[in-house]
């Protein structure tokens, strides 16, 4: 393929990514980020920091942890540690995505840039489509898709923050309430595997209980305790059914 045709092929892939994102995927994220913006405004935080968190963290769970823990007055290092723990999942996600992107042999810098755009929704979407896509189309498609999502989410964060501030008090509260509702539906809807359901249940019990004892450390400690119990129960149950099966 000559250089001009390759360039237009890349532009077409980028455009396809933008068009694929500008629909249900963007609407789902907008729903989450509108509520997040309103919640941050309701907690009395600043607009620039809140919008910046969407661009820099690009992970709504981490952003919610940051906003809630900071509002409770948790120490800087503990907030950072908790947010970082919630973000470890990006390591295996990137590891799984990279071989599919790398088939086209782009410059390494492009992959490090693409990693910042990776989110759970962009990952799930592209992972199912990449195997049927020509390798050289994948990176521009991914950047078009994920870039559109990030733009929509950034605008929604600002709109939720400003909108929440402008609305009358009761309407603002309703908008703030949309943020936990987004996670409630997203998590219960996505948790199809037993291990994920156990983690949800154990975390939902451990979080509020630990909040009564140690409010600043409750997200991290509740996650470690609830997640470890869920992992242990699932593992014991799996080993037991494996033994019964082998008998």
């Amino acid at each position, binding site marked *: 393929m000559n250089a001009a045709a390759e360039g237009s092929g890349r532009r077409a892939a980028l455009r396809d990514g933008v068009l694929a994102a500008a629909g249900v995927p963007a609407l*789902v994220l907008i*729903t989450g980020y509108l509520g997040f913006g309103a*919640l941050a405004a309701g907690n009395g*935080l*600043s607009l620039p*920091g809140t919008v*910046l968190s969407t661009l820099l*963290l690009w992970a709504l769970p*981490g952003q919610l*942890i940051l906003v*809630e823990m*900071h509002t409770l007055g948790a120490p*800087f290092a503990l*907030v*950072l540690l*908790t*947010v970082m*723990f*919630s973000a*470890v*999942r*990006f390591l*295996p996600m990137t*590891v*799984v995505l*990279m071989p599919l992107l790398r088939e086209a042999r782009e410059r390494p810098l492009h992959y490090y840039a693409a*990693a910042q755009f990776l989110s759970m929704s962009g990952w799930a979407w592209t992972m199912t489509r990449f195997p049927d896509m020509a390798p050289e189309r994948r990176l521009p498609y991914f950047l078009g898709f994920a870039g559109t999502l990030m733009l929509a989410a950034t605008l929604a964060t600002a709109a939720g923050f400003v909108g929440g501030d402008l609305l009358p008090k009761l*309407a*603002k*509260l*309703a908008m703030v*309430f*949309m943020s*936990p*509702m*987004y*996670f*409630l*539906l*997203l998590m219960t*809807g996505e*948790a199809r595997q037993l*291990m994920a359901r156990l*983690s*949800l*249940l*154990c975390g*939902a019990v*451990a*979080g*509020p209980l630990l*909040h*009564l004892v140690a409010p600043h450390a409750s*997200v*991290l400690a*509740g*996650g470690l305790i609830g*997640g470890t119990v869920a*992992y242990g129960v*699932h593992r014991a149950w799996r080993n037991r059914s494996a033994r019964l099966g082998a008998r």
Partner: protein
Amino acid sequence: MSELVNEYLLLTLACGAGTYLWRGLGVAVSSRIRPESELFAWVGCVAFAMIAGLISRILFLPSGALEVTSLWQRLLGAAAALAVYYLISRRNLFAGVLAGGAAMYALLLLQH
């Protein structure tokens, strides 16, 4: 107040860098580790439990703006969101979240 805002900005920068660390590390080591290992299964459980715990804490013991709402309002709002999401709209996230917000608004109006 301005000191608080500055700490929030610094914290956002630090958390952004801390999150990118995992992303960048994933690019660097992608050919050398197994993503389906038991360690990552455990990490996934902890991450899920963390956010579940935070959401359940916001529902039962909210801080910030939702402090002025009462527990029964939040639980009824959540019930409305779950009902619309699972029973009425065939898992339409937008409809479910909107229903939760609308129910909360109606319940707050009733009270005032």
